[in-house]
């Protein structure tokens, strides 16, 4: 069996994105009868302009960030074709196809709860709140695999400041869009839709917590959480809510979808922690996509600067 290590793949060997985007047409052609394939390719061509219009748009003037890791970036094709996005499908290989026609404009984010004034913000005005930065973060899934992604966005704190939360706001809850017409996974009650996530205010205000609208220098693809998501790199991936439509500030710890689904397995904090296993599997190691051997998982996914947020807390209890 040939499984190449990332380090052995030269950049010249990586499939150009244009070819990659059209690979389904190629596969269709190989699998089906010639006539059917020709028809399918023709159909795809008709469809193509709309579906790629946003995702392939380059974001101008992206600044570098000192928070970025120098580790090898996971290939774009992996990050865009291997997605835990249950709103579309529980199969990680399906959201890429199913999210193609997901509408990310017009898009508003409502700000509710303990704020000075409830309001509704347009996503395009949110994106302009601060200069876009590239943040190359490690991303660790609770399932035991990890990737390195060059996200584009700015600190979530920039948006939160605009929301003007009241002094008694201790948590912020994120709600993902509920659109079962566009998101076939939401027609099945695998989780309690819409997807909810939350952070403690000090976590949300930490400069590492990212409000994200792009990756690999371009607009965020639909299957990766477009048009607007958060990325909390020291927590398991499911904490980083995608396609956000609501921010609600509260004084009570909000519930999050995975905790509701299995409270003994997924906590509110869900910090990456090699010493606290998932009840059903070990979290001590992880498989970085593209690598053959597993590597040790790091406390807080290697983001030690957040440790002070949890000083004095028993992280086995608050997992």
């Amino acid at each position, binding site marked *: 069996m*040939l*499984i190449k290590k990332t380090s052995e793949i030269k950049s010249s060997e990586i499939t150009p994105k244009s070819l990659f985007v059209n690979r389904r047409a190629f596969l269709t052609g190989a699998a089906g009868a010639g006539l059917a394939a020709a028809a399918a390719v023709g159909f795809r061509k008709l469809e193509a302009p709309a579906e790629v219009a946003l995702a392939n748009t380059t974001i101008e003037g992206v600044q570098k960030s000192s928070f970025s890791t120098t580790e090898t970036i996971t290939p774009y094709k992996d990050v865009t074709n291997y997605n835990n996005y249950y709103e579309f499908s529980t199969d990680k290989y399906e959201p890429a196809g199913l999210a193609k026609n997901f509408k990310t404009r017009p898009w508003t984010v409502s700000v509710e709860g303990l704020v000075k004034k409830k309001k509704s913000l347009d996503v395009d005005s949110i994106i302009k709140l601060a200069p876009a930065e590239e943040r190359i973060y490690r991303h660790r899934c609770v399932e035991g*695999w990890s990737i390195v992604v060059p996200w584009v966005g700015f600190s979530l704190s920039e948006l939160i400041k605009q929301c003007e939360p009241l002094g008694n706001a201790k948590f912020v809850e994120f709600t993902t869009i509920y659109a079962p017409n566009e998101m076939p996974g939401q027609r099945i009650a*695998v989780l309690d839709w819409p997807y909810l996530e939350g952070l403690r205010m000090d976590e949300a205000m930490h400069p590492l917590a990212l409000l994200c609208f792009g990756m690999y220098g371009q607009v965020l693809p639909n299957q990766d959480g477009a048009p607007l998501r958060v990325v909390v790199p020291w927590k398991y991936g499911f904490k980083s809510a995608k396609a956000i439509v609501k921010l609600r500030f509260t004084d009570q710890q909000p519930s999050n979808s995975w905790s509701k689904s299995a409270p003994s397995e997924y906590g509110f904090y869900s910090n990456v922690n090699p010493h606290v296993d998932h009840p059903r*599997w*070990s979290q001590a190691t992880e*498989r970085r*996509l593209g690598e053959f051997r597993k590597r040790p998982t790091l406390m807080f996914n290697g983001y030690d600067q957040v440790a002070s947020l949890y000083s004095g807390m028993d992280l086995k209890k608050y997992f």
Partner: protein
Amino acid sequence: MPRWFKPLIFVACLGPLFRLGWKAYAGLLGANPIEVITHSTGDWTLIFLLVTLAITPLRKITGPLWLIRYRRMFGLFAFFYACLHFTTYIWLDKFFDLHEMWADIAKRKFITVGFTAFMLLIPLAITSTSGWIRRLGGKRWQALHRLIYVSGILGVIHYLWLVKADIRKPVEYGTVLGLLLAYRVVEKLRARKPQPALASAKRTTILQN
């Protein structure tokens, strides 16, 4: 059935492995090839277990005796894919760290049941030959080979316990397994029925006297 039919089925049973091999070679296994290999070999183990268990009901319902000659082959293919599945785990997940593996088997319920399901298949694979049927005698051999029911149930539980939230696929396997086992229970009950009927008939005659 023509003589070429069995070799043809044999090759077809290797299809899933060839497909995996080809995809691995061509780089079509996606972002996480090891996960795909693990899931695929696990899926095919369960599928072959269910196919094996379907032979007897199918023969009894539809009749053709030749079907029974395929049961051993399907059963051995279930074992074959189980071996691949186990190898994937011990090699690509544990990298032959036996200490880690034992800790895992003891600690993780879904691995405990999966491992048990695999272990139970080993004596069945060993005693699958005609020689062993003779040596054990038909009755004892049959009794031993009922372990496949346990293995099948544990296999489905193994799957059910490892998924995060979407239990549809393990439930599908469980439903098919349930039907196949229910058929056997019904058959057993039907075979037994005359006896209680006879007993109660006897009792009535006694009462009448």
